Structure formats: C-alpha cells, structure tokens
C-alpha cells in the first residue's frame, strides 16, 4: 500500500488500536489534522489547552492501562504539553505525544513556531523520536508504543516535521507486526533464587508489612497481590499512587502511608522486621529521613526498574522483573510451603496494629455530624461522596489538602479507580484527567475532587466537557485559599500567610459553570451537604459542579514531622505530636 506521511501516521495509530486522540491543531500539524478528518476509526477530542490534552490522555491511560495519545502542533503547542508529559513521566504512565515540527529544511533557523521539542522534553520522557523520513513512520510508531507500554512505562514523544506529513509524496506503507529493539530489553521474569530467599524471609518474619505502590497497578498485579496475602495474611499499606491495588475495606489494610499516611500504617512500617516493597520507590514523602527509615526491617524490593532499587533505601533482597511475574512466582512457591506459616506470630502483630489504629486512627464517621453551628469539614465532604457513590466511582483529584482528604477518606477497593498526580503533584490535573476517564468508561461514575485553587488551573476544559457531553461530577472543596500552602505556613512560618488568598476575586463557580451549560450547586451548611451531594449524583446526563464551602482553618493530619523525623514522628492534630 502506498500512503502519504500524514495518512501513514494516522493509519499507524489505528493499527495500534487507538480510540481517542486528545489534541489541538496548528500550522505544523495541519497535514495530520487533514488525515484525522478523513477517517472514522478514532475520535479526536479538541481540548481547550494542550495541558488539558496531556492530562486527559493520562487519565485515560491510568483508568484503562492503555496508552493515552496526544497530538499538538509545534512551538507553543508543544511547550504547553510539557507539564502533562512531566506528570505522566513522574508516575510512569504510558503516553504517546505526537508534536508537529517546522519543515525539515527550516530546523535550526528560529523559524515561526520552532522549538526544540526533543531537547525540551528530554529529561521528562522515557524516550523520544524525530521522524526523518516517511519510510520510518510505521516503525517509529510501533517502537514508541512498545517502549511506552513495556518495562517501567512512561511517555514517548514523536516529533514530526511538517514536510514529512505532506500529502504530496506517497511511499510504501506496511505496519510492522512485531517489534524488537536490540538495545531495549526490560526484565520480565524474576531470578528463582531471589524468590526462594523472599519466601524464607516471609516465613521467618514476626512483623512483616506489604508496602505496595503504583508499579503494582501498572503491572496489573492486584489479583496476584491479593492472592499472596490470602496465604500470608500480613498488614498491607499502599502509597498514594498504589491506592486500590489492595482493597481498602479489607481488615488487613492499614490505609495510605507516608507524609499524610495513617498512624497505624506509619507505625507498622517503622516497627516492621520485614518490608515487602512491591512496585514502590521509597519516595521522600514515604521515607521521611532515609537514615531513620524502618530501622529494624529487612527490605525486599520488587521492581521492573533496576535504578529504583537501592536508590534511596538499600534493599536486602532485590527482585527484578515485572511485578506480576514476580508475585506469581512467589505465590506458587509459598502455596507449597503454607503449612510452615506461623499464624500466632502474625496475630500478635495484628493486635499491636489494632491498638495503634484504635488510639490514633482516622475518624470515618465525621459525616454523621450535621449540625449547622459548625463549619463543614472537608473530611466529611469526602465521606459523603464515598457514601453517595457507593464506593464505586472513579475519582480523580488535584493537588492540595482536598487531595489528601480524598486519599484518606475514600476507600478504594479496586485498582485504577483513584487517579491523581502523585509524583509531580500537578495542580490542574483533576478535571482534564476526569474527561479521559469518562470517555473511556462512559457508563461509570466519574468524580473529580478538587480545590478552588487547582480547578482554576485547567478550568477552560469545562468547555470541552460541554462539547463532548461528559457528565462528570466535580466537587470543589472550597476553603477560599491555597490550603496546603497555608497549612505549611501555619506550621512552619508562625502563620504568616504569604500569597495564599485570592481576597474577593474568586468567581461564583455556580454561575460560571452554568454559563458553560452545566449544573451548579452551592453548599454552605452541614445540613445541606448530604442532599446536595446526592442530588449531584442523581443528575445523570449533565456535568454537575458542587461548590462546597468548608472550614478554611482545617489541616490534614497525620503529618510527618520534618526535617529529621522518622516515620513514627507525626503531628496528630494542631499542636499535638507523637
């Protein structure tokens, strides 16, 4: 078959099974957009800002496990995509970003809308390609999808000069069936000797903890993790990125760990004698001071990325491979040796954890207080959303206190349902990522829990939601300030509130969303909270934006004491630490 470059690119995406392209047109991408116009297999979603395109593709990828696809033009289109690429990179999310580029002969001349996209994106991509000839398009697209979706996943940029996508020149096109990159060979199966060592360590441990992160979700290893714990019955904690990979309503679940982790999760990690780190990377929000991290624990680290192991915390046993394959190997061995598991040892450990939970665990019943003499608590808002959505929604979030409350109080029982920017902490992620999730799962409930600061960073996407009729439910936990920054200023700067207030400049969100054709609900009193949130969920065919005015002085607790603290050093409430 002979095709022009623009059609080759689009045909290659179709061959990869792409359903949606999130993008924004412009000069260098015009040929490509002409090809998009002339096909029916994929739908192009026109966002309102390229950042929105990347987050939407990212949300789609996190919810489905399939790579998200982004199309932008050169120059400002490409640079606008950078924040979203970095967001996907930090959380190892598979994404393909195709950027138009000026014509080959103009590269390097400071041509109109020329930027060195490969150079700008280099530190925040898994890999990138410049297309130098039409005959390489199919091979490059094939390799890009392979790289983005294998090993430790991540975003891949394909930069393509305008002349390469010209409709005028036809070349042979055949989409490759297989791909083999000789210099790229991510590990799959673990070393059996290491698996034996892990099983020994598990059988010998008195106070083991499973610490599972986002890598367990990327590897689709939730079932294997649950199976492992059906044999060994140990306490499980998840990172912010890992929530849902182990059911939150299971009695062995400790909650999230780390900076705003639960008391029992952080205490269990600190006192553990064995930590099974599964697809987690000992981020600084998890370890607190690395030298003081889990002083008595033997560390077993499962990861597909060699460079993550012993980067921050030295591993005693390293298991390289796809987490799914490694857990399958552990399971088949431990099943055979299950008679050797000493359940009395574990009972003592569970009893200790129950004591921690009873003393300083989170209060999940705050929503029951409906009195109007107190301001609405943000925690209670999340609890109501959890009740009203029956714990079954996809929940995207932004960054700040509202995000931490969502992570603490919405109990995720399945992987890929909690969608948030953990690594980069990108305000503005919540709304566009919810669009990607809703397009992937039009019949599922998709909720965005946001703050009045974050929502304004990509609020233009409300217009995209009208155009494509995406009935997302947005809950704006409105504390009239950049709450998380304010909390740090309260705790570390004697309450000097530098630049965290908008004074009187906030829009009336209800009328704002109504002007886009959406439904707005405003809630200011506890007595309105339950009904207001339920009403939002009862409206099925419209986007509903619920603006909820909460106590502006609330802080997120627990909070790790830093600098120089360990995981057992936590603030538990204002002025009160362990």
């Amino acid at each position: 078959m002979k095709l022009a470059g623009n059609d080759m690119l689009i045909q290659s995406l179709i061959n990869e099974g792409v359903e949606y392209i999130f993008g924004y047109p412009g000069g260098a991408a015009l040929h490509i957009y002409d090809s998009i116009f002339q096909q029916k297999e994929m739908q192009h979603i026109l966002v309102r800002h390229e950042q929105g395109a990347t987050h939407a593709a990212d949300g789609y990828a996190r919810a489905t496990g399939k790579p998200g696809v982004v199309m932008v033009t050169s120059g400002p289109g490409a640079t606008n995509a950078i924040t979203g690429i970095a967001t996907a990179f930090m959380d190892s999310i598979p994404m393909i970003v195709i950027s138009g580029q000026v014509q080959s002969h103009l590269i390097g001349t400071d041509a109109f809308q020329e930027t060195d996209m490969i150079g700008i994106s280099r530190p925040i991509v898994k890999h990138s390609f410049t297309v130098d000839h039409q005959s390489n398009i199919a091979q490059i697209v094939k390799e890009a999808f392979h790289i983005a979706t294998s090993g430790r996943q991540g975003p891949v940029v394909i930069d393509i000069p305008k002349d390469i996508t010209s409709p005028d020149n036809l070349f042979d096109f055949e989409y490759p069936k297989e791909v083999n990159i000789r210099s790229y060979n991510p590990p799959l199966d673990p070393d059996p000797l290491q698996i034996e060592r892990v099983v020994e360590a598990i059988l010998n441990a008195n106070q083991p903890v499973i610490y599972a992160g986002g890598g367990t979700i990327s590897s689709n290893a939730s079932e294997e993790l649950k199976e492992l714990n059906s044999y060994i019955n140990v306490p499980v904690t998840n990172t912010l990125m890992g929530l849902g990979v182990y059911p939150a309503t299971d009695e062995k679940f400790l909650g999230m760990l780390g900076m705003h982790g639960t008391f029992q999760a952080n205490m269990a990690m600190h006192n553990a004698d064995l930590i099974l780190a599964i697809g987690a990377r000992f981020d600084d929000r998890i370890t607190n001071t690395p030298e003081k991290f889990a002083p008595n624990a033997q560390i077993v680290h499962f990861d597909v990325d060699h460079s993550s192991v012993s980067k921050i915390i030295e591993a005693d046993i390293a298991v390289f491979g796809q987490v799914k394959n490694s857990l399958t190997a552990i399971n088949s061995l431990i099943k055979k040796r299950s008679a050797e598991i000493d359940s009395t040892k574990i009972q003592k450990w569970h009893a200790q954890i129950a004591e921690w939970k009873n003393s300083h665990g989170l209060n999940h019943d705050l929503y029951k207080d409906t009195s109007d003499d107190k301001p609405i608590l943000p925690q209670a808002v999340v609890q109501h959303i959890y009740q009203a959505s029956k714990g079954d929604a996809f929940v995207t979030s932004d960054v700040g206190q509202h995000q931490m409350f969502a992570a603490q109080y919405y109990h995720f029982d399945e992987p890929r349902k909690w969608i948030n920017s953990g690594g980069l902490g990108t305000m503005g992620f919540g709304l566009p990522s919810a669009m990607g999730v809703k397009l992937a799962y039009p019949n599922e409930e998709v909720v965005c829990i946001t703050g009045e600061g974050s929502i304004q960073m990509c609020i233009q996407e409300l217009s995209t939601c009208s155009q494509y009729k995406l009935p997302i439910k947005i809950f704006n936990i409105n504390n009239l300030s950049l709450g998380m920054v304010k909390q740090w200023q309260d705790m570390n700067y004697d309450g000097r509130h530098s630049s965290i207030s908008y004074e009187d400049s906030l829009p009336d969100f209800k009328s704002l969303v109504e002007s886009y054709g959406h439904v707005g609900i405003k809630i200011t009193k506890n007595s309105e909270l339950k009904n207001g949130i339920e009403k939002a969920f009862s409206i099925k065919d419209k986007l509903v934006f619920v603006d909820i005015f909460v106590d502006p002085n609330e802080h997120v607790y627990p909070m790790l004491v830093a600098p120089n603290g360990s995981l057992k050093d936590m603030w538990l409430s204002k002025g009160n630490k362990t």
Partner: protein
Amino acid sequence: MIERQLTLIMENKPGALARVVGLFHQRGYNIDSLHVDPVEDFVPYKFIEDELNIKFSKGEVSRLIIKTTVGDALMRQILRQINKLIEVIAISDNESTYLKGILRDENLL
C-alpha cells in the same frame, strides 16, 4: 570518592549522546571528561553480539568513555540510570557490566 571510568556502547543515532550528557546534568552527577568515537573494530565486542544475538555493522554504534569522580553507591546508580537509556546497548565500570538489563560482575568493555 575516586575517579572512575565508564565505557558505553550505544546506537549511533541523532540525539543519543545528548541523552547521556543530559542525564548526568539532570541527576546532578559530574563529568570529568568525555570521549566519543564510532566503533570501527567489532572484534572486542563480539561477546555483545553473541550474548544479545545481534550483529553490528559499520557506523552503527559508538563508544563513549566518561570519567567521573563519585562514591560506590552513586556509581551503581549512575550505571543503572544510563543502562535505562533506550539506545545504550552496554555499559561498564571497572567492576560490572550491564548488557541491556543483564548484570555481570566484571568489566567486559
């Protein structure tokens, strides 16, 4: 901290060198010296061809020699980070070699 020598064999593709150099900067590692040339004689690298079941041809790969002054733990981290670059086929320091994900406890380059 001691001065170490790293040797890399990588695909000779546009932008590949920038990825290696960029990685040093991005991760806060220092480069004391850097030397690049195309590999003309594949005889010393025949084991790579055998192990990875590939065949090099002329002009396809380059050799980089980088000197850097770091401690042991950071050296290991640098090796692993560079090994992750898609276009790097093999990298070694004095004690170990990564052949695309396969770690060997000797300097094979």
